[in-house]
């Protein structure tokens, strides 16, 4: 074994990154070879020198001055996002009695529909094969819809009384996404709009419409407070002819 190989093993062990094979090989070598023990000692001294360097804390004014600057300088899009957020805050529902009755007649399911209207004929997408590792709550469901001129991935996550809808997509041209929800059960509190020029979103009772006019849109996020736990669904449709996939917002066990 070369000295360099030996020292690489020593480094890996001192870093806590060696596998069992490396550790055993190093131990065998150390038992048999005084030179190897000397190398270990030198390497430990280097690590100790680096460990002996004192830590420095940032001065307290760093946080204060950053936050003062941030408050003076809201991000460009923050203003209209805040206006949007205010539009999305819970408000009293005023609906004719007939409409209310019809709503109940449709069942106690709160329906959350996400509609992506792009173009061309629809094709039902397959479930997302990879695991998305976003750490908001836990994933309830995820789907991918592939289109001839774009794709969209949607994921629902639950965190306590919140439901998140996370969307990623890439579109060859403008895409229109609609989120339909029952505002007796869901109170949207945050929407992060798509990036890209010309993107905009609007909301009206029970529906949020997102138009992404950029080359691609990604990192759309929609969050709502869940007023009542219960079965909820998201449906995805794309194209005028519509392609759709349903996404559960609550785990199957909770829906039963």
């Amino acid at each position, binding site marked *: 074994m070369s000295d*360099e190989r030996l*020292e*690489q093993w020593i*480094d*890996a062990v001192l*870093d806590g*990154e060696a596998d069992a094979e490396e550790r055993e090989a190093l131990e065998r070598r150390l038992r048999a070879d005084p030179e190897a023990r000397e190398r270990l*000692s*030198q390497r430990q*001294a*280097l*690590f100790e*020198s*680096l*460990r*002996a*360097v*004192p*830590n*420095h*804390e*940032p*001065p307290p*004014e*760093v*946080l204060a*001055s*950053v*936050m003062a*600057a*941030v*408050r003076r*300088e*809201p*991000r460009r*899009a*923050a*203003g209209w*996002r*805040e206006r949007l*957020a205010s539009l999305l805050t819970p408000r009293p529902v005023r609906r004719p009695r007939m409409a209310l009755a019809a709503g109940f007649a449709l069942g106690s399911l709160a329906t959350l529909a996400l509609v992506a209207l792009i173009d061309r004929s629809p094709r039902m997408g397959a479930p997302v094969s990879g695991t*998305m*590792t*976003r*750490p*908001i709550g836990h994933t309830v469901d995820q789907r991918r819809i592939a289109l001839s001129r774009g794709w969209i991935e949607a994921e629902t996550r639950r*965190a306590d009384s919140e439901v998140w809808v*996370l969307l990623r997509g890439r579109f060859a041209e403008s895409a229109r996404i609609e989120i339909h929800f029952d505002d007796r059960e869901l109170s949207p509190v*945050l*929407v*992060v709009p798509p*990036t890209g020029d010309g993107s905009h979103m609007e909301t009206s009772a029970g529906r949020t419409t997102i138009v992404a006019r950029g080359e691609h849109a990604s*990192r759309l*996020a929609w*969050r709502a407070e869940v007023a009542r736990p219960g079965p909820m669904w998201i449906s995805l449709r794309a194209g005028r002819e519509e392609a759709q996939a349903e996404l559960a917002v609550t785990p199957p066990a909770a829906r039963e």
Partner: protein
Amino acid sequence: MTDEVLVLRSLGGDTGAFGEIVERYQRVIYTLAMRMTGSPEDASDLTQGVFLKAWRGLSGFDPHRRFFSWIYRIAIHECLNHRRGGSRFQALEMDPVSEARGPEDCVQGHEIESHVQQGLARLSEGDRQLIILRHFLDESYEAIAETLGVPAKTVKSRLFTARQRLRVELERRGVEDS
């Protein structure tokens, strides 16, 4: 609350959420800047600049990646620009004795720090970043690999080489047994 939730809330205009991000990462960014520049004043200015850039560019964060990797790139870019802007790496200035250590430890610590800082300044940018990420920011091989966009095996071999070079620099400065 997770980094991603804080980012999303910040994107929605919640400055309080961004404040939590700053609190969470200011120490690592300051440490990085400190080791890259050797100057507490420059490190302080750079840390503030990094978080302001992060605030302005928050929509560029890809939630599929670690937030640290994203802000690290901003920070390293700022540090390199700072260096190109005329400031040179310098030996560390002494700062007040830490209350957590005895005077002897502090003197010894500062002496070692000064040598290590000078040694770091003699390394290439790549070697310096590896040493900082592993030894001062305590990042694993896997995490360093993600941050630098190279395989973990490459991190392991490059880190070994970087340490060899640092050891030579420390020996030149008389740091014993290095």
